[in-house]
């Protein structure tokens, strides 16, 4: 599958629920696609403004294109996702969860890269969970061999990034 075809199919999938931005630069990293989703639930009393309680769940997808994915790329992208988590997620009292999904797309990915993806883990609890948590999901896609590798937290969203021919 070609990158353009893949990204178009993925965009069609995501745009129903996500707000999508293209070609942005964050912390010196060029990101081909940033997709954001927020779900806010709560109970109100009398009017919509009288909020008794509320909680928010977010998911941010950072998609980056490379030619060939190596272990070093995983390391570097993993650090970038950690920085995003540490610097950009500022939870308030209504925050429940944020899932940061990093997606690396390459034509190929080697065995070491796959191992590095599978070993990657980054989770953060805010104020002992009183302000929720953030998990980083890492997904790596090899277009030539229709391969897909995820870390343990990324398994839940693996289907989203599987190939549609």
């Amino acid at each position: 599958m070609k990158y353009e075809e893949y990204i178009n199919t993925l965009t069609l999938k995501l745009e129903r629920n996500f707000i999508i931005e293209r070609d942005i630069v964050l912390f010196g990293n060029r990101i081909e696609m940033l997709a954001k989703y927020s779900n806010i639930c709560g109970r109100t009393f009398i009017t919509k403004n009288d909020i008794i309680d509320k909680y928010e769940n977010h998911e941010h997808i950072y998609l980056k294109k490379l030619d060939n994915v190596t272990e070093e790329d995983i390391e570097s992208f993993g650090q970038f996702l950690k920085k995003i988590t540490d610097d950009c997620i500022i939870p308030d009292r209504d925050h429940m969860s944020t899932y940061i999904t990093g997606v690396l797309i390459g034509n190929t990915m080697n065995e070491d890269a796959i191992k590095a993806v599978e070993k990657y883990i980054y989770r953060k609890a805010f104020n002992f969970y009183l302000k929720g948590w953030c998990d980083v999901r890492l997904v790596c896609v090899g277009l030539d061999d229709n391969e897909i590798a995820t870390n343990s937290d990324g398994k839940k969203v693996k289907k989203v990034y599987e190939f549609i021919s």
Partner: protein
Amino acid sequence: MNSLVLLFIGIAAFLTAYAFYGKWLAKQWGVDPTKKTPSCTMRDDIDYCPANAKVLLGHHFSSIAGAGPITGPIQAAIFGWLPVYLWIVLGSIFVGGVHDWGALFASVRHEGKSIGEIIRANIGENGKKLFNIFAYLTLILVVAAFTDICAGTFAYDAAKPEAITGARAGTASILFILLAMGFGYFVYRKGASLSVSTVVGVALLFFCIWIGYQFPILKLSKFAWDVILIIYIFLASTLPVWLLLQPRDYLCSFLLYSMLAGAVIGVLLVRPTMAIPASVGFTVGEGAKTQYLFPMLFVIVACGAVSGFHSLVASGTSSKQVENEKDTKLIGYGAMLIEGVVAIIALIAVSHAAGAKGTPAQIFAAGVAEFMSSFGLPVDVGVVFVTLAFSAFALTSLDTATRIGRYMFQEMTTKADGTKTALTNMHASTAITVGLSALLLTYGYQKIWPIFGSANQLLAGLSLLAVSAWLAKSGKKNTMTVVPMVFMFCVTLTALVLVAKGNFAGGNIVIGTIASVLFILALVLIITTINTFFGDKSKNKNVDA
């Protein structure tokens, strides 16, 4: 009188009313199945989202059902079972059901706006402030009443070491809270399958009951339970909702439905005879403790026949999800009639446990556990199970009331320009709300309940007033809402006068003062609302159909 007969007559009356009176009301109000509802015309899949009528009935019922329809009939049983029964049946059909359905239908015809919103939008800033103070005082009473009932139920008396039912239920309740937090952690944080977690969670829930039964380690005084519950309410109202409340409420629903199913099956098998007198006359008690059938019966039964809180739920949430106008009958009228059945079961339980002493929870548990013993559940275990279910109900009411009370306090202490004060802080406002309720605990729930009932019924009267005004302006008949409205105003205002007088005479100055303040606020609110809907024509556009 055999209670089974009463249950069947009650259910038959409800079904008949649903079929015939409901049909007549629908015709008079112009319920139109072809008319599009706000859930379709304003659909945003957040607030406005069409839902299947039966699913919405379930959501609506679980929102309006609390410990009220159980507590009220049990306390009102001092007047004898007949007046309580008649008021539950007739009140649910002609007052409570009409009120709930009317509020729901009016809201559907007003783009899903709530009755409170319509009133608030029309009565101006001062009216809104009065409404806030009125509702805030009511909520403090709710918190005080249910805290006292729960603490009294769990309390252990060292002078009676053999009476360990409370310690068993208290131990099980604390374990249940811990279980709920664990359940939430595994489902939300660890991503455990909901169906598997539910099976395990429900199994562990019954294990908690068994542990509490076998090892009642929390043998604490009422005062200690008061303190524990106050701390619990504070935490439950300030902690993130998904950490404790959501998983607890989810598991609670299984507890609730199994208790109701067990109680109904038990009544069918036992067919108990009503063991309390049918009627004891117009006056009960002596001196400062005198209670008159009118108006006290009608405020003490409270949610068992009519509740103002229901109109807030019906018009605040449910109306935005109604898919078809014809569904409003099932959701608004049907849910209230089901609550009437719960109230009848509570009345049968208190009659069966005639002579049982204690809090409404203990009396209800004693009665229902006896019923459940008919299909093999040991009475002692049944008592722990039902007490846990009741307290879970009450704790949910406590938490919601505290959260709403906190919100109102924050709103009242925010300056007109939106500037927040130190009192607006979430923890400060929660502490003050809970603290004020704690101060009332010394008076006991028996003294608090009638004022809560009066305030809640008065809210129902105000909602009926809003619905009546809308029907009149739409050129429709409104006798069916005006008659119950006048009745509820008479009941609540008379009750507040009597409660104030009785408490001042008995030296309960704080309770007497609260009743007096509520009476004055109620009068001002009624006059303001009547003026709003019938006096100033320029504001009428907000209530037009």
